[in-house]
């Protein structure tokens, strides 16, 4: 793959995301935070995000794909348990689960 192709790909991807973002702002001009459409968009947005998370944890690509399903699922459970056990501490839950994940993959 030539470097010229990479730069062109980055440019094309940038234009794509910038256009989408601008169109998002334009489309939102008449949407009120109290309207049914706004609530539907909120639901779809969080639905998409949860779908992304499930996919990353269960069907990952790249480095995470090298780890076992057991390590990914068990450390996800650890993150949730820590979060609810320690007054919903986001930082603690994320750090403990990441350290657990590194340890599980190193020793098991």
């Amino acid at each position, binding site marked *: 793959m030539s470097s010229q192709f990479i730069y062109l790909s980055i440019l094309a991807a940038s234009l794509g995301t910038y256009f989408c973002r601008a169109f998002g702002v334009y489309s939102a001009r008449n949407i*009120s935070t109290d309207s049914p459409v706004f609530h539907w968009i909120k639901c*779809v947005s969080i639905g998409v995000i949860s779908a992304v998370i499930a996919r990353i944890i269960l069907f990952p690509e790249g480095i995470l794909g090298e780890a076992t399903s057991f390590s990914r699922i068990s450390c996800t459970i650890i993150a949730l348990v820590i979060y609810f056990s320690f007054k919903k501490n986001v930082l603690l839950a994320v750090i403990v689960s990441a350290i657990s994940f590194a340890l599980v993959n190193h020793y098991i």
Partner: protein
Amino acid sequence: MQLILLNDVASPKIPPGKKIILAITPVIRNQNVPKWKQYLTSHFIAVTSWFNMFTVHQNIKQEDKFDYFVGLGGFLWTNSVVCTIAGYLFSNVVSHEILVGMVFINPMYFLIMTVSNLKEKMMICSVLLGASLSIILNSFIPGWSVLVAGILAGSIGYILFKKEIVHE
């Protein structure tokens, strides 16, 4: 770094953030802000800034929300650029075990932030269905499972619990 990590572990067809932009723009809208600033600020909209804004926006006056978001999103965006450069420069120094742990931070952060924002039944339903449908649809339409699962889950969650919406 978050974007690079997310691209590394997730599907190549993760949908663009237009829905997130549609979800956050009405919240931070300010009639006194010129349109070009609104279009420029759309580049600061990402999952992290969206989650954080939704967590705190009810405690902020409407006229201050746009400025608050520019500060929040601008900091996160700048931070991501600096961390991407740092990640590129120091990637050889970090051992593989630590790298694996760092890659896992991204989905865990998204997961915990998602859970922390679940207050309404329609959102809880959308999240549970989104995750379940994504897993099921991955066998049939792997490239589009995330987008289709999200739209289906959000629509079902909204339809089932729209009567429980508390109007502000």
